[in-house]
């Protein structure tokens, strides 16, 4: 089954890395197929950044996301630019510490940045929390796979921190109520 996931936030939050990690988990550790794409260029500076990943059991043919099944939104501007048009049947994970708006679809609120800062001492791992929550909430890749993919992708010395963040994500997704 094809699952389209779109990530958005602002520069520096690791939006692109998040998508890459999820794609990597699918391809390298779940033996699935994935295509990751993103928005490039100086026009993308400052504003909202966007990245997407498509995961499928069969090879991904059309590589572009057209109507995402899942959104991971980490900034208000990201919501406005890339989240606001979410279809009714989509699922959206929002970083509730930064995104005020809520979509028309099912929404999972994860206070990722707040938790990252307060519980883990580093804003920067908010994206990993969101990935954790994404995996827990959707099962789009396995927990083992995402763990390995995270370890592949983060700087040496930060493995533990990132795994903690991932687990926080698992946890937070387990707690939320869906509206």
């Amino acid at each position: 089954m094809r699952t389209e996931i779109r990530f958005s936030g602002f520069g520096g939050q690791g939006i692109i890395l998040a998508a890459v990690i999820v794609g990597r988990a699918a391809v390298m550790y779940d033996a699935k197929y994935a295509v990751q794409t993103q928005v490039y260029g100086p026009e993308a500076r400052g504003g909202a950044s966007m990245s997407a990943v498509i995961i499928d059991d069969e090879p991904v043919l059309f590589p572009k996301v057209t109507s995402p099944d899942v959104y991971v939104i980490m900034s208000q501007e990201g919501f406005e630019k890339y989240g606001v048009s979410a279809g009714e049947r989509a699922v959206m994970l929002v970083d509730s510490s930064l995104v005020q708006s809520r979509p028309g679809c099912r929404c999972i609120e994860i206070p990722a940045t707040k938790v990252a800062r307060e519980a883990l001492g580093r804003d920067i791992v908010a994206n990993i929390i969101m990935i954790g929550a994404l995996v827990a909430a959707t099962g789009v890749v396995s927990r083992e796979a995402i763990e390995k993919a995270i370890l592949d992708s983060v700087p040496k010395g930060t493995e533990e921190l990132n795994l903690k963040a991932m687990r926080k994500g698992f946890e937070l997704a387990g707690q939320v109520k869906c509206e």
Partner: protein
Amino acid sequence: MTFDEWLRVDRLPHIYCAGCGNGTVINCTLSAVDQMGWKKEEIVFVSGIGCSSRAPGYIVTDSLHTTHGRAIAFATGIKMANPDLKVVVFTGDGDLAAIGGNHFIHGCRRNIDLTVICMNNMIYGMTGGQGSPTTPRGALSTTTPYGSSEAAFDLCGLAAAAGANYVARYTSYHVKELTLAIRTGLGNPGFSFIEALVQCPTNYGRRNKLRQVSDQIEYFKSHAILAQKAERMREEGKKIPDDMIIIGELARRNRPALGVRK
């Protein structure tokens, strides 16, 4: 004068990253141009391609945003065809000295009456941080992952050797001096070259242990040495460390110029 008079405010904020030094150089240039008392309709800004070269697009005068490296060649055509226009070129270290190096030295040789302002961030900013001909030896960039092994150009030295009438170097920290230098360049017939070292926190600072915007500005502040002082030190036999930035007016002369209305 307010900057807004000179700017296409409908296009602001511009695309530069937070803390990018290019915006400061725009300020200094607009101040200098304003001080010259020139009318907006008699000025043309020309540029090539790069972050720096986006500057003309934010200014209300006529402007030509050309191809990578070719700004001076285009500007030469403008100036020769209509010497009444005041032609100012914005360029970057890659645009001017990598792909555009030939037009640069020929502009200097012809001593054509242009003012060329190079925002030298020692990197290719627009394309994401590759080494440029001014990247210092040893510095990291995406194409010099083991440290640059090539020597960097002394752009001002090159301009002077090639024949430019006016040559000066400052940094984005030296806003007043830079403004004055640009003004002097604008007023001087012939080729005026002003090199402005600028911080690129995104693509230079981040990779070279100058992570904060302020780190690079502090670096400029602490490593700048006035040409006259450097000269004195040299005369006294003192060695000037390799990482010092010689600032000030580096050439000013009165060779015959091209493109001046007779």
